[in-house]
């Protein structure tokens, strides 16, 4: 198993450009997540998905869009890049939580470092 993979590893964008951060997992997890991590800060949830065709906003969704057409893939789209979106982006996935549990272990990708100039 490759686990959770993310591409690209690094990217520099100009203000106003768009791009898609790719995320894939091969563990047949229904739950997938996108986080951003700013310097000296914790991870903040951007969007999450509980299954194919179902997505929902997290804490900081503005400026981003997601789609979940398959169980394996959960791309994150930036339409008009802004300097405030300079960050490290992490994708994660998890199984459905078991009965009585709120969440299962999240497995993280290696991250994408994005700089917007």
């Amino acid at each position, binding site marked *: 198993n490759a686990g*959770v993979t993310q591409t690209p590893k690094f990217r520099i964008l100009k203000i106003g450009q768009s791009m898609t951060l790719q995320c894939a997992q091969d563990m047949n997890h229904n739950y997938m*997540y996108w*986080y951003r991590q700013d310097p*000296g*800060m*914790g*991870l*903040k*949830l951007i969007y*999450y998905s*509980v299954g194919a065709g179902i997505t*929902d906003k*997290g*804490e900081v969704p503005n400026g981003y869009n997601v789609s979940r057409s398959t169980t394996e893939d959960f791309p994150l789209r930036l339409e008009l890049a802004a300097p405030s979106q300079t960050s490290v982006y*992490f994708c*994660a996935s998890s199984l459905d*939580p078991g009965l009585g*549990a*709120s*969440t299962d*272990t*999240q*497995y*993280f*990708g*290696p*991250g994408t470092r994005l700089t917007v100039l």
Partner: protein
Amino acid sequence: AQRVTQPEKLLSVFKGAPVELKCNYSYSGSPELFWYVQYSRQRLQLLLRHISRESIKGFTADLNKGETSFHLKKPFAQEEDSAMYYCALSGRDSGAGSYQLTFGKGTKLSVIP
């Protein structure tokens, strides 16, 4: 709203000394707490969760609901313990349909040989 506080950005200890990484949380319901770790050049990974009540790599953490804390402890630090440690809380945020993880800002543990 749920919140996780890790008061120390950096913690330096000598090899063999005890380690305690502090984590305090704010949540009105019944929380589930986790510690995640990120070693140099590796991805973030789960270290332990409070419901498992287990010891991983010599680390333990006890949920103290009275003090709203979930401190991570190890009696004798090793050089390989040097990493970033994140405390996380799972709770159903207001208006959200499912549980979400809220992370603290992290503590960098540096074990001095």
